[in-house]
């Protein structure tokens, strides 16, 4: 339709290296642009929290100065971690990730594109928070502001990179959000904000030493107390950047191209797995080939029933459905008024569990784009 050339002779164009990374970055930013509220939250919330802290410590400005500075490292890290892991997870659950993996887009380009897009958002956020902190709230450092912004930005990219890495291990939004207390909070506790690092127990210090956020905080504290950039600040910054690169480098590995079960496919809970009972024609009924019957439960039961075909006439149930659902569930088509509940996983499950006979109108294979029940795997 878009070409008059025979496909076989068509010279296949290729996206230039780097172009696909840019395409992903552009797309991520465009998605953000269509979501002004998220942009507003990204830009405003850290500044508001900083103002809240300022109010909290009006009597002790030196405490606010210490904590506020550390917060400039913590906010972008936490926010970017969350935003990125959720964005990546959405990509997975919406099926677009699987689709992208069938296109020529290399996986590192996908991740780099994400990193660059959210990194840019993070830079804006860091600049905004720094401006508010120093311009309005009276934060002070011995060193120049530029370093503060730079450190906050590198730190935000670290959050992006860790978010990308962790999201590969999350199967649902709930899990992704749980990674925050697991991955992020220990770093916040041990970075020297709550208790100065030299007052921690030895083993806590040892843990703190291997957590990258520690180095971002240390770098900011260096800027806070020295008028010029110190070697230690650069070393800290290098560690943070190195950790971000490492996380980005590791992230493609768990992002498998081939999966045994597409993750997050709606309505594909294990309980909906088939018993695959060879349907035995039931005397007296139109012997339509029944769809692969759903087993009472996944796993062993299904296996057992898979090897012992039994007549199903007595246990057959029908559910009444909306006409839309009937259309998409039309196997067998048109013959029957009602649909076998086995055609529609939620219905079959509901019907088994109770006397519920009414289909919610959700059917596997429905083209309405409606999502099924939250994946329960």
């Amino acid at each position, binding site marked *: *339709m*878009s*070409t008059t050339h*025979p*496909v076989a002779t*068509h010279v*296949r*164009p*290729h*996206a*230039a290296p780097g172009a*696909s990374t840019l*395409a992903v970055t*552009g*797309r991520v930013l*465009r*998605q953000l642009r*269509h979501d002004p509220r998220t942009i507003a939250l990204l830009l405003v919330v850290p500044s508001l929290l900083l103002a809240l802290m300022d109010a909290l410590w009006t009597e002790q400005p030196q405490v606010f100065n210490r904590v506020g500075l550390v917060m400039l490292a913590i906010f972008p890290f936490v926010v970017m971690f969350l935003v990125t892991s959720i964005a990546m997870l959405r990509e997975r659950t*919406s*099926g*677009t990730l*699987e*689709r*992208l993996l*069938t*296109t*020529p887009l290399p996986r590192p380009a996908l991740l780099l594109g994400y990193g660059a897009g959210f990194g840019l958002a993070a830079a804006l956020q860091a600049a905004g928070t720094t401006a508010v902190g120093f311009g309005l709230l009276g934060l002070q450092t011995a060193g120049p502001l530029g370093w503060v912004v730079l450190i906050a930005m590198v730190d935000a990219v670290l959050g992006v990179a860790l978010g990308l890495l962790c999201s590969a291990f999350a199967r649902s939004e709930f899990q992704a959000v749980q990674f925050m207390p697991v991955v992020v909070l220990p770093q916040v506790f041990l970075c020297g904000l709550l208790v100065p690092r030299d007052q921690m127990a030895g083993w806590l210090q040892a843990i703190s030493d291997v957590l990258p956020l520690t180095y971002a905080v240390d770098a900011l504290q260096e800027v806070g107390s020295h008028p010029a950039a110190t070697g230690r600040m650069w070393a800290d910054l290098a560690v943070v950047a190195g950790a971000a690169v490492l996380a980005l480098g590791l992230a493609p590995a768990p992002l498998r*191209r*081939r*999966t*045994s*079960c597409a993750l997050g*496919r*709606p309505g594909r809970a294990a309980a909906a*797995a*088939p018993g695959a009972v*060879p*349907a035995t*024609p039931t005397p007296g009924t139109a012997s339509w*080939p*029944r*769809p*692969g019957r759903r087993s009472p439960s*996944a*796993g062993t039961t*299904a*296996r057992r029933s898979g090897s012992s075909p039994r007549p199903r006439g007595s246990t057959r149930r029908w559910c009444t459905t909306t006409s839309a659902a009937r*259309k*998409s*569930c*039309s*196997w067998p*088509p048109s013959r029957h008024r009602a649909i076998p509940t086995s*055609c529609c996983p939620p219905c079959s499950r509901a019907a088994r569990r109770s006397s519920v006979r009414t289909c919610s109108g959700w059917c*596997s*294979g*429905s*083209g*309405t*784009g409606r999502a099924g029940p939250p994946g329960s795997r």
Partner: protein
Amino acid sequence: MDAAVTVNHLVVDRGRHRVLHDLSFQIPPGQVTGLLGPSGSGKSTLMRALVGVQVVRSGEVTVLGRPAGSAALRSRVGYVTQSPSVYADLTVRENARFFAALYGVGAAAADRAVADVGLADAAGQLVRDLSGGQMGRVSLACALLGRPEVLVLDEPTVGLDPVLRVELWEQFHALADRGTTLLVSSHVMDEAGRCDRLLLLREGRLLSDSTPAELRARTGTDDLEEAFLRVVREQQAEVAA
């Protein structure tokens, strides 16, 4: 001409279940092959194996002479998933242009693909504001703009009104006439007659691989739905015997 797709003794497990049992078949190039079977029979799984995103237990899948999923195939094989996999928070045009950039074709090709699926008027709309059928067509447009030689479409016509369905089938045949190999799945038998070839899948086993005419002749009925029934009964009789 060589087959566009060759599947040899393909076995796929999902979770602890065997979903595809030892499938072997070939798909000829430049034709529309229909993959028909009830919901849950393994159509989507088979398609995932063809585009190389499904872990397979054993067997071989060769597409255009290469193992399915190899890097060289990714710009030559298009895949439209069953549920529309496009970005709901982008406009139709932005979606198309994004995929166009991945395939290395220009924005003009993206806009043409959007027009080809009849969405020119909705190009500036956010995908989440579209109807289910329209979303499906956006998804289709994003696969077409790479000008794939093999196009794998998972239930592309579900939920579409009859007029659109006919139009889409005409498009499929137009593509096939230009040399594209199409594999189109469906769980409604009334689409079977529109295919050049039919693969009937049931419970992960291939019941039949023939043209619609051959199927009609073999089963002695003009009604493909009835023909499918008879094939199932035949097979059951064999199993029982």
